[in-house]
């Protein structure tokens, strides 16, 4: 079977930063593979190692600069990558769920996978909606917030656990083809080996514009307009203990004794 994994390069922000307009100033930003997608890649690669998947393909919406991140996914074992970018996407503050759905759906239709794995959410914009939206758009089945997948996939069924709130898991069978959104903790993502990193440089990466995948620019017009960005006001009324580690530890020690919870 063929597995497609959606991979996003997310922006990371330093502890101290400044905001310019509706963006964080560039010097405070880094870039990384989205944490949730890392688990999705690992799950796909494990399915390949278990002989279930024949091919693992990644798909990314992003400019050329994110190819390093895509190579990370290839270094971990994905076979090839598709990257979609277009001049019309330059300068868009926030690509909304519908726009991502149109683009990813077009690639998925072309690739025709049996299973799509997608991180539950992206660490930057945190929408947590694209995977389910894509599934519905394509007429695929789906499961959101999956933290366990049985690897036999017998009779075209994915048996999964969905992580609900409060330490409860839901056991669900989902017909394939399906999109599963993958929660952290489902596996232990591997580090790319040196050999993997070398091999990744030679793996194929297709770069496609919107026209190449049959998506009209007007269909991806984003409906959500980001109008302001600011640091949340601190509501802290904590007592900050100051001094050397010895002094602050002593303050905490006194508190614990006062409360009668430690001797």
């Amino acid at each position: 079977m063929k597995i497609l994994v959606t991979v996003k390069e997310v922006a990371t922000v330093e502890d101290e930063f400044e905001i310019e307009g509706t963006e964080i100033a560039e010097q405070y930003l880094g870039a990384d593979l989205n944490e949730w997608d890392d688990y999705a890649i690992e799950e796909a690669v494990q399915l390949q190692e278990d002989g279930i998947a024949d091919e693992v393909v990644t798909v990314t919406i992003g400019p050329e600069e994110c190819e390093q991140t895509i190579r990370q996914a290839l270094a971990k074992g994905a076979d090839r990558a598709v990257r979609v970018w277009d001049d019309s996407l330059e300068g868009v503050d926030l690509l909304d769920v519908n726009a991502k759905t149109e683009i990813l759906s077009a690639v998925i239709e072309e690739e025709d996978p049996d299973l799509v794995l997608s991180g539950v959410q992206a660490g930057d914009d945190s929408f947590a909606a694209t995977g389910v939206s894509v599934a519905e758009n394509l007429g695929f089945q789906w499961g959101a917030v999956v933290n366990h997948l049985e690897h036999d996939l017998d009779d075209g069924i994915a048996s999964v656990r969905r992580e609900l709130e409060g330490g409860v898991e839901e056991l669900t069978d989902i017909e394939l083809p399906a999109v599963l959104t993958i929660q952290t903790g489902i596996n232990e993502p591997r580090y790319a080996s040196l050999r993997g990193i070398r091999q990744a440089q030679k793996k194929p990466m297709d770069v496609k514009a919107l026209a190449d995948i049959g998506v009209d620019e007007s269909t991806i017009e984003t409906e959500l307009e980001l109008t302001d960005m600011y640091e949340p006001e601190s509501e802290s009324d904590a007592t900050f203990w100051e001094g050397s580690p010895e002094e602050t530890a002593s303050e905490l020690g006194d508190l614990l004794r006062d409360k009668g919870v430690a001797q």
Partner: protein
Amino acid sequence: MTDVLAVADHRRGELRDVSYELITAGRQLADETGGDLHLAVISGTVDDFADKLNRDGVDAIHTVDHGEEFNHDVYTQAITQLYDEVAPQYVLTPNSVNGLDYAPAVANELDLPVVTDTIDLDNDGETLVATREMYGGKVETTNRLEGDAVVTIRGAEWPAAEGTGDAAIEAFDAEIDEDAIGSTVNGFEEVGGGDVDISEAELLVSIGRGIEEEENLDLIRDLADALGATLSSSRPIVDNGWLPKNRQVGQSGKVVTPDVYIAIGISGAVQHVAGMKGSDTIVAINTDPNAPIMDIADYAIVDDLFDVVPELIEEFEG
């Protein structure tokens, strides 16, 4: 079209708290748009749920009696049909695990934009301004949206609606296409039983990403031993397999209410805070004075845990 259709959340026979918070958020939006607040409650003991949801501010409750538990295909079909019937401006759902399992599908089916995990909503009669967080809570953003939309709200951001309402309760006869149901829920399992119940502890020493390496956990174990405390953690520690699931505090782990909660190297993501904010006294040890955990801490030490924790151990071991 100015009405609001809000969809209640329930599990294993119980309405979830966010359902009552949804009434407050929905009423506020309906007041701003000049419309009615409709509630939908789908599957389970819907008549019983409807009675409980009939609180101040609800205009109508639509019950869809189909199956016991949540199934996203049933929800998606029922909500899209209710949307045609009620013709609301906004479909409002919880940003819960189940909300995220159907809200994007409903939006796509209805060809509406979806905005998730909102923490504040404002409407001037035409434009919705939704407030949400980005970058793990480091910034807040406002987002404008014209026209109809599907909106999910974060739990515990709006107060729960109270009082007794006089909503019209009506059964809605949704036509559920069984052939289109592609997933089956086979049951539920509680996870994280095990040796220790952290929800019973009086003193919790809780560790997060700041511990950096698995072998550094020994330092925190030593601290817990010295204090006679119970060891717990935030999600990443459990995801890494460094501690078992029964030690996880948070939305998807355990809710704890100890006398003292010492959060060490924990930034305080909203999912974690949901599990420990009821602690009597919260102490944070963190290098970042702006970490979200500081907003709910009673006492804080802004310092390196690897410097402070050994001092604390020494103090109690003598």
